[in-house]
């Protein structure tokens, strides 16, 4: 393999990894605060791409207005899912909430199929993102550079929000202990709802960029990326935002390199993440950055 080709694969891997990281953060935040997998997260991501599609194609709104609108709509959707599928079950056994989340995920998928049809739609990618630039002998889409930059900006914003603002402090408090946080005067429901909104917003950022990179959208497109990003979050250590980013990059770069170096295994691409997950869980069940927790009796 030549160096050029390797660099091309690496840049692809980094941009895929950035996308995984953005979505993985949504999982890790919800897990951190509720100790639950948000099974509907992948579908919220899918809905974001549909919002963008309708904004640009159906209503003809220019992309720089549509994209912020999509972020808001998706955040509202995430809060809605929380209100319907999670809040009524706050004191229920975990297994009930998991099933309810699976139901919500299913509902979103099937509703999209009914409303918008199961046929894949072309994502309207504005030209300034898809232009190709030549770097030496490597030709790369401009988007490949934008994606890590946008991811980085979102991450910095998120870290600032969590560490420096009052809302962020409330989120950290709730994730440590619901009861104590409530005693301290924190509105638990509002904080959890905000966490869902924030996670969904990041999923929307990821969704828009995913649509630009792989310009074909369909109702079940969120399932596999959703699972993979959850795996990324687990690999990095779930509940830990830095871990989610590391996990996302490991998964994204690993996947691209697997195909690049072992083209025979292309068919097994989707299995790679799961194999990695099982290996990690067997050797270090709490992930790379996760802390070991002992169960109190």
């Amino acid at each position: 393999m030549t160096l050029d080709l390797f660099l091309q694969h690496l840049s692809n891997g980094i941009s895929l990894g950035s996308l995984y990281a953005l979505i993985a953060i949504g999982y890790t935040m919800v897990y951190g605060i509720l100790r639950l997998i948000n099974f509907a997260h992948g579908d919220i991501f899918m809905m974001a791409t549909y919002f963008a599609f309708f904004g640009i194609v159906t209503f003809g709104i220019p992309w720089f207005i549509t994209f912020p609108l999509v972020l808001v709509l998706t955040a509202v959707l995430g809060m809605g899912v929380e209100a319907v599928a999670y809040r009524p079950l706050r004191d229920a056994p975990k297994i009930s909430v998991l099933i309810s989340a699976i139901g919500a995920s299913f509902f979103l998928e099937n509703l999209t199929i009914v409303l918008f049809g199961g046929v894949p739609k072309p994502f309207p990618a504005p030209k300034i993102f898809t232009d190709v630039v030549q770097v030496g002998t490597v030709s790369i889409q401009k988007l490949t550079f934008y994606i890590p930059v946008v991811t980085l900006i979102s991450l910095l914003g998120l870290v600032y929000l969590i560490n420096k603002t009052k809302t962020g402090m409330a989120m950290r408090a709730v994730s440590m202990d619901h009861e104590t946080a409530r005693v301290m005067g924190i509105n638990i429901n509002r904080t959890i709802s905000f966490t869902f909104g924030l996670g969904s917003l990041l999923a929307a950022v990821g969704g828009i960029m995913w649509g630009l990179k792989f310009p074909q959208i369909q109702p079940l497109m969120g399932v596999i990326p959703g699972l993979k990003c959850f795996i990324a979050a687990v690999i990095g250590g779930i509940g830990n935002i830095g871990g989610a980013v590391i996990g996302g990059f490991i998964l994204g770069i690993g996947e691209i390199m697997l195909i690049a170096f072992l083209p025979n295994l292309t068919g097994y691409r989707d299995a790679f993440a799961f194999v990695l997950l099982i290996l990690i869980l067997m050797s270090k069940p709490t992930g790379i950055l996760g802390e070991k927790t002992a169960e109190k009796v």
Partner: protein
Amino acid sequence: MAEHKKRNQILTAVSVLLLLGFITFAENYLDLYIVRILNVCAIYAILGMSMNLINGFTGLFSLGHAGFMAVGAYTTALLTMPPAVKQQIFYLAPLAKPLDQMNLAFPLALLAGGLLAALVGLLIAAPVLRLKGDYLAIATLGFAEIIRVVFTNTQTITNGALGLKGIPALTNLWWSFGTTAFTLVVLLSLINSSYGRALKAIREDEIAAEAMGINLAKHKTLSFVLGAFFAGIGGGLLGNLLGTIDPKMFSSMFTFNILLIVVLGGMGSLTGSIISAFIVTIANEVLRFLDESINLGFVVLQGKVGMRSVVFSAALMFVVLFYRHGLMGSKEFSWDRLLAGKFVRKLMGCFKKRLPEGGCDQ
């Protein structure tokens, strides 16, 4: 009490006889479409019970059922298909030897399917059962997904994405209902044994169970492998009922359908799973109109393809949100409870009182 026991035995014997009579009648006189639905009901009951053993009784939230079903379905199908048909459908790449010449009787093939699924379950159990809660869920889901991906790529064994066609239609009501009964008897006797009590103890509190001297790994593996075995058999019956199978069929969607059955019937109730398997499958057929357009004579309502799935996912959420314990909770069906029920008592009371004057007018 003894009197009740005798009464219950008689009632059970009578209902078994009635069921046998009904199967004979259905096999000979009923519409093929209805027979097929009844078969699917019974197969889903097997799948529901086997998933209930893992999820409801042992408290292991496993989402790998579709994988086990796929293993069972493919094994049984490949072992029962005549060699000529195999040669015909494997046109991209020939079937690996010695599978291409093998042909077993249906029960042996089913058993092989179940055993192979159990073996896969055993291999998976070692790494996966160290996990808990949602980690376990995602890892088992991942394993099912890996099985599906592998089946899509092993062209010489599973015919890849093309799937298998022309599987002999060997599943009939005798097989499906018989297997359901067999599954029920085996699982009921397991659950009422000391093993079953250990499983329930693990479900309630793992640490306490371990402190009482229960070997966690052994019991969890037992439940997982047995669940996989019956899932494999259910898959085998399903493949030989439908006639065609392909890897797409065994996606996580399928697992969630079974999960709906388990939750609706009640986690921890085998008879609940059977009842809800029938309800869900029949409802699925009745709701078919949602996918098609309805002609009411004066107006044609346009159905939308996929509407049925929307209703189904909403039903799953509805059950969990408002009806968390399902139809049966963790109780099993019993004649005592049925006869002590309000409705039946009223019926009996009015039957006894009014009989001399000539029936019940209520």
